[in-house]
């Protein structure tokens, strides 16, 4: 499992890096210049929401507090995503150096990796890696001789709750509470872990930082599109010859990706995991980018033999399972949408009712408390829309058993 088996190549993250080098460089810069470099790079969050990283860092840097935290979000619960696992196993130097640079930039003393319970088997190797960093003075006091810069990182194990990837639910669970999302504002940049200013960044976001520090924002910006600069890791699974993690510039078309991974007879591509959107053939020229087909990296491919209603059923079961139940639109809404899918399966539905469910799906997007409820109807709405004919022209008027 944990072998560095595949030789990976890519323009940024998979381009080669020497542990500690970006920390050395960052410590020779002043903090404002690091913030400017990150801002100029236009780096945006890789965890799904795409928030500008520099804005988050600047707000936390500006917050007055004797204590600040850096949290690396390694909850990676979105179905179809596994790139953070690959980073933690094969490129821990990028992730942790990114955390150290963030800490120096905003003045944090403590970092926490929130590792999903499903990745417990990585716990020991991450601990060992951090211990080595301490020995090499990449963590601890006066890091690399920088007087007064002290920072350490611990690993916290989650316990199997998708919603804990949401940053405020994550913080709640770190504090020993149920992993229920908070109302925002206030945001973690001001009132985060233990009420202190906190950066929550995705594993991949942090892993990108050392490369930007080493090679500069100009270099980074040359890749990608205007609104989505640089490259992205895509976790590709489903019907293709070469599933795995790919680093590609933002703006890559779905069809280009399909070719690269040798997918044949593709009928549908789910972009962004269960909480993302499902595209049909006529949409494969869409670009993978924040401004078009946005994604935290999950790409699931379905060929002509797949039943899209079954796919949708699987996604809706997931959300019913994972809704934290705190707010009604999400708690009840997902159950209703799942019931609707089962009704279609049995052929016991009216279009009047299905249309009501679509309205419900749209209400959930605005009325739910956190991102889970905001996005859990995306699959329902996009699959019913983009695979309308297949779904409502099922054999036996929908009453087929498979």
């Amino acid at each position: 499992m944990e072998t560095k088996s595949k030789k990976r190549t890519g323009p940024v993250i998979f381009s080669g890096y020497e542990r500690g080098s970006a920390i050395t460089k960052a410590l020779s810069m002043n903090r404002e210049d690091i913030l400017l470099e990150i801002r100029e790079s236009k780096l945006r969050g890789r965890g799904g929401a795409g928030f500008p990283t520099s804005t988050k860092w600047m707000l936390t840097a500006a917050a007055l507090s004797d204590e600040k935290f850096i949290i690396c979000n390694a909850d990676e619960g979105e179905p179809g995503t596994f790139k953070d696992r690959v980073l933690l196993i094969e490129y821990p130097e990028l992730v942790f150096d990114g955390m150290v640079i963030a800490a120096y930039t905003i003045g944090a003393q403590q970092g926490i990796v929130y590792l999903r319970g499903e990745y417990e088997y990585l716990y020991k190797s991450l601990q060992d890696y951090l211990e080595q960093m301490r020995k090499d003075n990449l963590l601890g006091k006066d890091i690399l001789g920088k007087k007064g810069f002290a920072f350490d990182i611990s690993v916290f194990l989650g316990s199997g709750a998708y919603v804990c990837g949401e940053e405020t639910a994550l913080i709640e669970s770190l504090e020993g509470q149920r992993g229920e999302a908070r109302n925002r504002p206030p945001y973690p940049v001001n009132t985060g872990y233990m009420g202190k200013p906190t950066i929550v960044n995705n594993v991949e976001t942090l892993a990108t930082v050392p490369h930007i520090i080493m090679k500069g924002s100009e270099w980074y910006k040359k890749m990608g599109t205007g609104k989505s600069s640089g490259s992205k890791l895509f976790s590709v699974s489903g019907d293709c010859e070469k599933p795995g993690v790919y680093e590609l510039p933002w703006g890559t078309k779905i069809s280009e990706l399909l070719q690269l991974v040798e997918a044949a007879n593709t009928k549908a591509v789910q972009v962004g995991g269960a909480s993302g959107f499902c595209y049909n053939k006529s949409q494969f020229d869409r670009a993978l980018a924040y401004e078009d087909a946005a994604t935290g990296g999950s790409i699931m491919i379905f060929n002509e033999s797949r039943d899209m209603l079954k796919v949708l059923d699987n996604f809706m079961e997931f959300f019913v399972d994972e809704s934290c139940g705190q707010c009604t639109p999400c708690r009840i809404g997902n159950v209703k949408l799942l019931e609707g899918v089962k009704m279609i399966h049995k052929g016991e539905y009216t279009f009047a009712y299905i249309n009501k469910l679509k309205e419900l799906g749209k209400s959930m997007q605005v009325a739910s408390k956190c991102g889970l409820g905001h996005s859990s109807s995306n699959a329902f709405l996009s699959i019913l829309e983009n695979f309308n004919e297949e779904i409502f022209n099922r054999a036996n008027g929908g009453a087929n058993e498979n």
Partner: protein
Amino acid sequence: MLVEEKNALTEDIEQLIKKFGKKRSALLSILHGIQVKHRHVSEHAQQEIARLLDIHPVEVYSVLSFFAFLNTNPKGRNLVRICQTISCDMKGKDNIVRAIERELDVKIGGTTSDNKFTVEYVNCLGLCDEGPAMAVNDQVFTKLTPEKAVQILNKVK
């Protein structure tokens, strides 16, 4: 005051508190530690954790009941979790589940009569490019076939 006789469970909790701190933010780590060792967090354990952290037992139960990987009733000695997410589903997770059910004479969600295995579904294990995947305790296995899955479980003590 009489010196209370500490049972092993209390000692375990004290060890965990020593490691993670006597504070609310250590709660999930403590619960996890007890779960791993005792395969559940009993009512007695909840009360002891609450007492030692100086919080109400209901606070402990409230957190415990939130998380899928924590449970109040004992499970089998080994926990088998099969990924049910669509990528593993498409690679044949149903066949894996049926083979395991047949071979261990257990229904998914249940525990074998000798208490050796509890078999469950789990949401995405993050091994989607190598499915079907399953976890046995804290180890993961990928690219399963029905036969391979059964062989793996046969080797478990």
